[in-house]
């Protein structure tokens, strides 16, 4: 499992790889949290969420949009997620902590998840995803 930042002029483009779709979503979630809040994130609080969508690309976009919403209004910074997929229904336990200005202020706010360039591929080696975050 891994993610890397791919060069993109205006925004942040992430490429994630993982053996399963669940792990791929989890890795992309980690990437977004790292961009926003850095690497020093604890897991003291658990927050459950459920998202349904019409296809895999929409599901990851809707999941991450929901995370952005919760993180902002509840001042939560997440460290990791346990994700279950049942078809196009995602349930997840998000583990995190309250936003701490000293440790979490240095990142870039993600304004939204772009559908431009959003792509999930699957081959014998597993799954790969490209996604652009508007920052």
């Amino acid at each position, binding site marked *: 499992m891994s993610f890397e930042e791919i060069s993109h002029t205006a925004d942040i483009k992430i490429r994630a790889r993982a053996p399963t779709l669940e792990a791929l979503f989890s890795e992309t979630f980690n990437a977004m949290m790292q961009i926003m809040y850095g690497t020093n994130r604890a897991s003291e609080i658990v927050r459950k969420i459920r998202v349904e969508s019409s296809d895999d690309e929409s599901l990851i976009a809707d999941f991450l949009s929901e995370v952005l919403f919760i993180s902002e209004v509840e001042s939560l910074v997440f460290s990791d997620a346990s994700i279950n997929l049942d078809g196009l229904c995602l349930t997840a336990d998000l583990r995190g902590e309250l936003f701490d200005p000293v440790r979490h202020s240095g990142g870039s706010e993600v304004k939204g998840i772009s559908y*431009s360039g959003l792509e999930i591929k699957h081959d014998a080696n597993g799954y790969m995803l490209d996604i652009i975050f508007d920052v």
Partner: protein
Amino acid sequence: MLEGVKQIGVNEWEVPIGYVAGMRVPGRFFLSESLGKTLEPGAVQQLANVATLPGIVKNSLAMPDIHWGYGFPIGGVAAFSVDEGIISPGGVGFDINCGVRLLSTPLQYKDVTGRRDLIDELFRTVPTGVGAKSALKVSQQALESMVVKGAQWAVKAGYGVERDLMRCEEGGFMKTADSHALSAKAKQRGVPQGGTLGSGNHFLEVQVVHEIFDPAAAKTFGLTLGQVCCMIHCGSRGLGHQVCTDHLKALESATRKYQIAIPDRQLACAPLTSPEGMAYFGAMAAAANYAWANRQMITHTTRQVLAKMFRIDYEEMPLIYDVAHNVAKIEEHVLEGKRMKVCVHRKGATRSFGPGSADLPTDLESIGQPVIIPGSMGTSSFILRGTQIAMDRTFGSTCHGAGRIMSRTQAKKKLRGKEIVANLLKEGIIVRAHSDNAITDEAPDVYKSSDEVVNVVHEVGISKLVARLSPIGVIKG
């Protein structure tokens, strides 16, 4: 220049029909030969994609700060027939009414140079960065008025003076706002963030008027050589981001319902006259109003800091102007000799209304509107004026900034935050930010030269140079 793109004049290029399948009109953009060297094929493809959307009139346009975005290119402008055309969040972006305003002061360069305490106090007082919340509380009830009346609400709430509204595009609020089209989530995000700057390329900069190109216009706008001004660049915060997220999803279904073929999912759209199109338009206007109120609240905080520190009156700091650069609006333009209403999308582009245009206060009628073009951190910003040429050629639009040329990944490899801060300090520019990343991401080297971008719009005539401002201090998210 890229293959398939034709030069049709000095600094002017055409993307012919057929560049991508389904184009209804040609694309057109304004760029110098040297700026063309950094043009990405993706940006031109996006310009061409916009030309495929139903109801587009004249051309899919891009300004010289064109670069690769999502949906529309950054710097993109397109107008759609109000009867047969569409509206798309991809033509506005997540940060609805991201915009910029310039506040004047009675102070001179000598009063503020080297004043780290001023920059420190602004950094302490104006909430910046990820997770920042405002000290100026907005209640749930006040939010309803804020999204309907924008800067006018803010002035009534005590965050400004009546004259400020005369100096905002649209008088500081779009009358078409519909607070019912906002989701509960959007409102929830809006409550704690009124009066916050955000992160990324948003900033508050203390600047000095360094050069005047057009003395008559500068005088009318209220700018004098050596004068200290404050530039505020921010948008509609989480509320605006949520509006885009919510409506993008709703409009995806609408795109299928109305059988509109789109080359990129981010261009999801609906006929402007459809319930889905009207709902987005109403919500987008409400978010735009939130942004005007937000900039007004930051203006208030800035004025309070300056008033206290330099013992000057609040009223001695008039607003020069406030412009939106991510917005869709219904405007009247002349097409083939006939006035017609169109829905103009500006995605990283500034309105540049010329003399005699609607929406200008009486004292600006003969000059045209002030156009504010922020530079990148440490470089010049410019004030221009709107022109008739812009009205004739670009639906009254011009560029919005320098335009990025280096990605954040490249910037992190090549640049170090501390070095950038030290180098800027040598030039007399004090920078405060929450992290090194915030500085490397927005360093001067990651942008096109603002001088060169502004020269193109000046030479083409879609806005004309009035003044150059140089930074002396900047706070960033």
